[in-house]
Structures are given as C-alpha cells and as structure tokens.
C-alpha cells in the first residue's frame, strides 16, 4: 500500500492548507516554489567508496557507493555499470514495512537512476576496462531513513552527492585482465543533474512537497535538469492528469530551482 495513501491529514488542517495555498502561501511558511532546507553531508560511511546523508526538510536519505569490477552487458560492451537501488526502511515511517522492495520503492529507484544515467553524469565509457570483458560496476544503494515527502529529490541528491565524492582504485590493463593499482582516483563525473519535484494541490503547484502536502496532492511531476539547463529526465506521478501548459511551466521551474540547488550541491561536494 502506498505510504501517501496511508498518511492521514486532519480535516481542519486540510482546510487551512488549501486556504493558504490560495493566497500563495504554505503551512510551513515557504513560498510555492521554495524547496525545504537541504543539508548535505558526505563521507559518512568509511567502508563505502562514497557516501552521503542528505536531509530535505525532515526527509532523510543515506546513499552509499560500492565499486567493484564486473562483466559488461552484451549490448554495451564498452560501458561500465551503474545500478541505483533504494530501500524505504521500516524505521523511516510507520507505513513502511520490511520485505522485498514495494512498487513505490522500485519506481523511486528507477526514476532516480534515470535522472543520473540519462544526464550522463558519470562517463560510463571511462569505466570500461577491457571491452566486452571487464568493466567497473558502481552500485549506489539508498537507505531511506525518514520519510517526510519528496523522496524523489532527497534520494536523487544523496546519490549525486555520494557519486561526486566517490573514490575508486585506478585499474591498469594487463593483457586481457584489469588489475587494480594502489592509486585512488575519483569517479569520472561529467555533469551534475538536479531533480526537482512539483506537486499540484487544488489549483496550486508547489515545489518539494512534504508528507502532508503529498497526502493532499493530486499530481506529481519530477523533472531533472543538467548544468546547461537541459532536461534529461522526467516522471509524472499519481493517477491524474496534467495540462500541456503546466508541463512546460514545470520544466521552467525545474531549470530555475535546480540552478540554486546545483550550486549548493557543487559547493558541498567539492
């Protein structure tokens, strides 16, 4: 069962929220296009190649990167592998349960994965060691530690921060084999994709909905943009419609809001 559906907002609070939204305000005082406070800590898991703990308001995610060597997919023999997984831990919410990943967690991981992959953040061709035989595999596992809405962005930021600060062994090729050296190098980062999620409540469109707002939203859209203001991934969510005009407006909002977040991200992960 989706966590959104389980979250209960009291009637009086709902009325209050809708009232304020009509006036362009939100319950916590934010402007409609204002994301919550973002905190980025990196290097928190020493056993990982890279890691980050990101708090977006009260939503908190820890991402850890593990790098090893593996075999490439047959249809991309010259590319390393990048795999993003997410688990919504039972400790993160009264509505989360232990067990295999829910439909919700799978969508979360795949949307975050696409944002990273499609932006070409990591140059996967540089992770090829011996074409068709040996490549660098990069697992990014995300532990959702506290659920308070907009896991898409919080998780995406954690992955970006963890990857930007990841270190891996340098490999050299001997004949047909890749051998690790003692030298340590960063993961080849090319871009910094930033995901921005918007929600519609009644007539208003807000950036970075918290759990209370998500419980009342009727539409969600996540748009990821890159350093040049290109759009590299999007996912519309919820059983609802969106007008074409709103999609284009959301793209503009994402580009604009993403810019400030990208600056903070780059600053925090230099």
């Amino acid at each position, binding site marked *: 069962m989706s966590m959104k559906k389980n979250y209960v907002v009291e009637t009086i609070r709902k009325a209050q929220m809708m009232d304020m939204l009509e006036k362009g305000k939100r319950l916590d005082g934010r402007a409609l296009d204002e994301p919550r406070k973002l905190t980025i800590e990196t290097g928190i898991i020493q056993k990982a190649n890279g890691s980050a703990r990101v708090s977006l308001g009260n939503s908190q995610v820890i991402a850890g990167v593990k790098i090893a060597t593996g075999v490439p997919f047959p249809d991309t023999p010259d590319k390393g592998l990048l795999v993003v997984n997410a688990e919504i831990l039972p400790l993160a919410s009264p509505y989360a349960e232990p067990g295999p990943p829910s439909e919700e967690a799978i*969508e979360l991981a795949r949307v975050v994965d696409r944002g990273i992959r499609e932006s070409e953040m990591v140059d996967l061709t540089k992770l090829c060691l011996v074409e068709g035989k040996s490549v660098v595999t990069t697992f990014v596992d995300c532990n959702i530690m506290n659920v308070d809405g907009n896991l898409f962005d919080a998780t995406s930021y954690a992955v970006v921060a963890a990857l930007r600060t990841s270190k891996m062994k340098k490999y050299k090729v001997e004949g047909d084999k890749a051998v690790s050296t003692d030298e340590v190098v960063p993961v080849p980062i090319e871009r910094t994709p930033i995901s921005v999620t918007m929600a519609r409540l009644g007539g208003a469109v807000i950036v970075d909905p918290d759990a209370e707002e998500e419980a009342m939203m009727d539409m969600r859209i996540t748009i990821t943009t890159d350093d040049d203001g*290109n759009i590299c991934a999007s996912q519309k969510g919820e059983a*609802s*419609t969106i007008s074409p005009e709103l999609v284009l407006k959301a793209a503009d909002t994402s580009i604009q809001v993403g810019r400030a977040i990208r600056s903070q991200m780059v600053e925090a992960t230099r």
Partner: protein
Amino acid sequence: METEKKLMDEDGNRLDGRKWNQLRPIRLEVGVVKNADGSAHIEWGKNKITAAVYGPKEVHPKHQVLPDRALLRSRYHMAPFSVDERKNPAPSRREIEISKVIREALEPAVVVEDYPRTAIEVWVEVLQSDGGSRVAGITAASLALADAGINMRDLVVGCSCGLLGEHVVADLDDTEDKEGNGDMPVAIMPTKGLVTLLQVDGIYTRENFQKAFELAIEKGKEVYAMQREALTKRFFSSDLTSGPIEEEAA
C-alpha cells in the same frame, strides 16, 4: 553527430524510410479475448500487444476494498519470446514500474467512483516488443476498458517521441530507442487535451523538450482516430472474427 547520421540520412529519412514526424503502421482490433469482459490487440511497428479487462468484480483480498471507488489493478508483462534474448518470465523491476505508470495513466479516464468496492483488472501482455511498447499498451488497454463497457471520461492514447542526435522525431522504434538520444513516452486523454503519462529520457534543450512533447501529443491524437475507428468496427460489425489480426502469410 555520428549516431545521428546513421539513424537519419541527409534528407531526413529514418532507417525504415519514415520522415521525422511519421508514425509506424498501426493496426487495432477490439474484442479479441473471448473470456475477457473487454479486450483489444494492437500491432504498432513490431509491437504486438494484447490487453484484456476483467471487472468490475469482487476485491480479493478484502482489506484492499476502496469504499468510494473501484480499485484499478494493472500488469504490464512481457512474454519470454517477445525480445531478442529470452526474458525470464518473472516480472522485472522495469515491468513493475511500467505496470504502475500504466495504471496511473489509465485511471484518470476511468469513472472509478461509479464502481465502489469493486476491482477492475487491466492485463497487458507484450507478445512482441518494439520501441514504444508502454504507450502501445496503454492505447490497447483503454480500448479494452471501453470494450468492457466501463464508464470512461475519455479514451487514453499514447505516443512516444524522442531525439536522433539533436533532431526531434516521432514514434521511435527499437533501434532508434536504443541508439538514439532520448525517448519521451506521453499518454493523453485526447478529447480533454490532458496528459496522463509523461516520462523523459535523454538530454533535451528546453526547445527540443517542448517540440518533442507537443509532437507526442499531436501524434497521439492521430492514433486516437484509429482507436475510434477500431471501436466503431467492433460495435457495428456483424462479422466478428475470433482471433487477433490475421497475418498476411497465414
């Protein structure tokens, strides 16, 4: 750009000879699964997809009952023989995600509040997969819902547009999806002009994003005309054939 050259020649012709804004051939047939309350089969490029609807029916397990509306269920599933390398029949993470977005793309068009405490099941089976299988599946599934006599606000129809190099093109096939530079599946409720599914892959300038998105909506409306025709054929034809579309060679 090298990729672009391969996938589109200097005259703007694509590998299969289509122009940038041209759809692949589409054939639709409604009422192909005997047991189902509603069904449809679509062949779109090399996609061959059958969708069937059962419901409104009792909800099991009971704790999933929604007191004020129908519970919409969906499954997008690929036959093991539908792709180049045999696919394990167990649902992949991709299939689980697509099942979810398909459900969310269809539900706005279904008058779920007319069927409280029931389940409506939408099963989409990809028999052969080509680019754009999720929008083809949605297109067939909304026909199956209509065929089942479920109250609908509109049909739902989809089209996927994308990039070959920097060129926006309509309706990517498998090769263009894999070797091209972006894929953007869009589903719409055509008479309402509203979007119910949007996913984006690739790197689009703001301009190309808008161009591809608007092209997807425009081409979706083209497919909608075929949907209506297929429904008409179903309900006004006295000569209902039993199987899906007959093969030329058969």
